[in-house]
């Protein structure tokens, strides 16, 4: 359920006006706005935020692993609007079994490397990504280092 405080946020109003199903949750905490979008709608919401709400910059994309909780993964997008001078955090929750989400490279080209990094370190797959390969780890690396079940220390077998 969305609180009254979050409903009065201009970005939230714009998203809800387009389609009420685009938002499942949202909060304003420590002066920062976080919106939770269903994974299947992320491209539509991103396009709307870029064209209507002037979020021209995608600052970063990353993931959070909440294992053993379900949905296990969160993909976190940080947006920045130069003209409105505001920032926004958009999140999608993904299941642990088959973590897949549409790529945002068609909306912001900067998503390319950030999504590759998230894929490399969390194993989240981005559909329609032009070059979804490992970026930090060697190409033949097994496992996804930033997952919580991946040990911090140890030798490569």
């Amino acid at each position, binding site marked *: 359920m969305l609180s009254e405080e979050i409903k009065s946020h201009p970005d939230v109003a714009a998203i809800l006006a387009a389609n009420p199903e685009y938002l499942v949750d949202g909060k304003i905490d420590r002066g920062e706005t976080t919106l939770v979008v269903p994974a299947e709608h992320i491209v539509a919401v991103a396009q709307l935020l870029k064209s209507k709400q002037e979020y021209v910059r995608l600052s*970063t994309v990353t993931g*959070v692993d909440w294992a053993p909780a379900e949905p296990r993964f969160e993909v976190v997008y940080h947006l920045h609007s130069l003209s409105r001078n505001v920032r926004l955090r958009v999140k999608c929750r993904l299941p642990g079994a088959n973590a897949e989400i549409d790529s945002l490279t068609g909306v912001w080209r*900067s998503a390319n490397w950030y999504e590759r990094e998230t894929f490399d*370190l969390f194993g989240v797959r981005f559909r329609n990504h032009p070059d979804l390969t*490992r970026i*930090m*780890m060697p190409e033949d690396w097994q496992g996804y280092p930033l997952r919580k079940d*991946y040990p*911090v220390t140890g030798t490569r077998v």
Partner: protein
Amino acid sequence: MATREIIDDTLVVEGESDPDLVRPKRMTLNMGPQHPSTHGVLRLQLELDGETITWAKPDIGYLHTGIEKEFEAKTYHQGVTLTDRIDYLAPLSNNLCFALAVEKLMQIEIPEHAQWARVMLAELTRLNSHLVWLGTHAIDIGAMSVFLYCFREREEILRIFEMCSGQRMMTSYIRPGGLALALPRGWQNRVKKFIDVFPSRIDEYEDLLTNNKIWIGRTKGVGYISVEDMLDLGITGPMLRAAGVDYDARKQFPYSSYEKFDFKVPTRKENDVYARYLCRLEEMRQSARIIKQVVAGIPPGRHQADVPNMTLPDREKMKTQMEALIYHFKIVTEGYRVPAGEVYQVIESPRGEVGYYIVSDGTAKPYRCHVRGPSFGNLQAVPKLIEGTLIADVIAAIGSMDFVLGDCDR
């Protein structure tokens, strides 16, 4: 006489039956990861048509050390040391961003004295980083002597860091809750002596380069990339400002009392390597202005917030007061708990936008700490920057980005 012509992608020498002389027209060239002029382990795959680059692909990750994973295994107190090691030219900027993020999570205010000291240190870091950039960038393009002058001034900055923290580079001086130690006795004189001379030293660099014909020839009109591409590809910092976008987190999202200082954000319109050079030089002058304001008007006060369970107590108190000793023991052995929540703190580092995304689950260790390094965002634009240009311009173009591979790979 055999005639040579190019059919499709193959160079054909007519009347020549030797298959070795039939070669593809395009050549693939591997630049790095140990190329001496790339400053770090960046590998560039280039496809050349003659001397023109038709395709480029940067390959990164050679310096990936899993810093984000390591954050999760260390307490917030220990994590400060990791932030030093992300960007070896701007350790204090990373210290500052991490400290601000943790303070935002804990919702504590730190004394003005410490905030102003942080501003001074962050600006000295900017000078330090820009000096190394200028020196190495000039060497790349063939101006050897600038490097020596830049490192002369940089040495003085490193000595100031050493005076404050005991370390020249891995300072860990800005910590959540304030500074590690109070500013040392006599810091004002030391900084003032340096900063009074520094603007004339910038004039010296300008004498060597700004009207130098070779410098202008190598940098003017080189490395153009449109503003739309820059924003779309995630470029920040002086590169963006040299294209006319006046985005600077110090002005747009003021932190650590930057709003109280009088300084300008220099921008240029030309959007080439030369404009980025002029932009960074002007930034150095503005940083010097800020540092002067700090030295002249720093408010008196403590170097740490009054949060005894988070900031390490003074040495003297530890020897005489039981509570101080207990707090010290607890901070060092278990760390301090940070309330659950998440923040994304952004600051303006010498290279552009640094962002720390910290997720806390209420324990003494970050649940997740993501670092948005400016070099990562900037390097993504390398293909756009150099495709279609000459190979001789690659070094000038990527040098103007001022990236640090440690910051990119983390």
